[in-house]
């Protein structure tokens, strides 16, 4: 295998893996802080991609401005969803899961009816390629990777260094004790829900020039993110990062070496991991639910 090919596969795996990392981090944030296992996350990702596409193509806005608009709109939508659906059933993880399935069905079918099934593609905002040594890499993928890494560091800073992040971690540990300490848990739930959905919208915006945009793009992505959660574990962000990268790299290298069987290869990897670590690489299994 040449260094050229290897770096291409690595780049593909990293760019798709980092998208999984973004979406999976949002899922872990929702699961840990708000106790919602959000099936509608893929639809927020899809909406982010569509809004970015619309702003770029029809309003002729700058790519980054379009992503910002997409994040703001999806955040507003997610806050509405939180206020009118999840606010009433918070704490009960099964009911929240069921409600998010209903939300996902509505958003997916609504998008199918309004956007149709044809595939759309956004012109890459950066043309040409980046040369590192004798290897040429497409610029939009390098940009996607750099953006994702930047966002993950931003998220780390938010959770670890700011007051809001501290409050989120406190609510995750025990929401009753946290509210005794004067933390407004409802506000923290809203912030965490909006942040998780904003991450999904951001991922959709970043991926808009790389992949084709269809209403069902979120659904297939979400299933891969679930696999990332199983690989990495659901308790910590680190699990999401490692899981997302593993899934992305296995899919990318598997697609080249074994073709269509790459998904089955991924399932085999997951099977081996959960046989030895039932809760994922960086998680403990919850023994009592």
């Amino acid at each position, binding site marked *: 295998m040449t260094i050229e090919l290897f770096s291409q596969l690595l780049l593909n795996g990293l760019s798709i893996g980092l998208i999984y990392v973004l979406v999976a981090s949002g899922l872990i944030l929702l699961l840990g802080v708000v106790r919602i296992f959000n099936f509608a996350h893929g639809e927020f990702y899809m909406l982010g991609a569509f809004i970015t596409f619309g702003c770029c193509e029809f309003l002729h806005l700058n790519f980054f401005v379009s992503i910002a608009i997409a994040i703001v709109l999806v955040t507003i939508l997610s806050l509405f969803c939180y206020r009118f659906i999840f606010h009433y059933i918070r704490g009960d993880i099964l009911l929240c899961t069921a409600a998010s399935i209903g939300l996902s069905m509505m958003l997916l079918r609504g998008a199918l009816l309004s956007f149709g099934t044809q595939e759309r593609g956004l012109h890459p905002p950066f043309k040409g390629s980046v040369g590192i040594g004798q290897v040429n890499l497409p610029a939009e993928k390098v940009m996607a990777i750099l953006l994702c890494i930047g966002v993950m560091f931003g998220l780390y800073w938010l959770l670890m260094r700011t007051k809001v992040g501290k409050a989120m971690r406190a609510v995750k540990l025990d929401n009753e004790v946290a509210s005794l300490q004067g933390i407004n848990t409802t506000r923290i739930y809203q912030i965490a829900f909006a942040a998780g959905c904003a991450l999904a919208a951001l991922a959709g915006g970043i991926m808009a020039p790389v992949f084709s945009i269809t209403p069902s793009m979120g659904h297939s992505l979400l299933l891969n993110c679930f696999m990332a959660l199983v690989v990495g574990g659901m308790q910590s962000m680190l699990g999401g990062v490692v899981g997302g990268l593993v899934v992305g790299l296995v899919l990318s290298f598997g697609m080249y070496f074994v073709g269509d069987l790459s998904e089955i290869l991924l399932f085999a990897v997951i099977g081996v991991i*959960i046989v030895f670590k039932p809760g994922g690489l960086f998680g403990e299994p919850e023994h009592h639910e």
Partner: protein
Amino acid sequence: MNRGSRKKGIIALGCACLILALLPFFTDSRYFMHLIIMTCINIMLGLSFSMLFSAGLVTMGAAGFWGIGAYTSALLVLKAGLSFWVAMPLAALATACVAFIVGLVIIRAPGVAFIIQTMIVNMILVQVFGHFEFFGGWAGLLDIPAPNPIGPITFTGKTANYYLILMLLLVNILAFYALYTSRIGRAWSAIRLNARLAETLSVDLFRYRLVAFIISSAGAGLAGSFYAHYFQTLEPNMFNVFKSIYIQIYSILGGLNFYIPGPVIGAAIITFVPELLRIGKEIEPILTGAVLILLVIFLPGGILSLPDRLGFFTKEPLAASSGKNSVQEQQEKRVL
């Protein structure tokens, strides 16, 4: 469960059986009979979901095990040339074996991890059915023969198939009812109420959950075997995660705490109402989603909890307690 409610349950079951048994004499619409047959299959799938729920597990992979039953039965008949009546129990057995192996791996991580892992198992099964030519590939299996005739009875029309699925459903309901009232069923409800406490009372969580997983999967496999020979074509995407989500909705709609009547009511509504209202396939998921959200917010106990909520059948209406408390109260009294 007191004697009165058991008596009521038996009367309800008898009446329902009588009405359903006489149904073909009142209608000759093939479309209506098809809907009824599909309802019966969906009820069997919903019962399988509810059985796992009674042991405190939420599955998103019921459709995958349904598919195993369907494919096993179809392949045994098509490739090995067995009779349907031999293939059907073998299909249920094969599903149970797969569930045993899968369960050994995934039941160790209950909770949210179990939801995701059952979903992944379902996706693996769809991929396996689609990828390998042995299973017919993505185009699916075609021309699966109808069940072999017994004497003068042939299973080519709707009516004979209807009586067959009705028998299967009845056997399924009675077997599950017997399990719920047995020692195993009591262990399951103990696990669901408080797993930690149940474990201190030396209830083996892993073993009882594995039993629930195997038996519920065998029920789904039985439904799959009938479905393969009734529908006569199989395609991998019939058994994808969307179907599993619908199966979950049957149980939630009817009422999660009503292990047997819940899926019956829920599956009947989800199968019939969109067809009767002539709602197009395009907007049906939007309405189903909206109903699911409204139900979860306003009536988390399902449709069957409505009489309880309104205070029928109880001496005094339930105090206007918060949602959490009433859910717990309902968990403590299992109906039927």
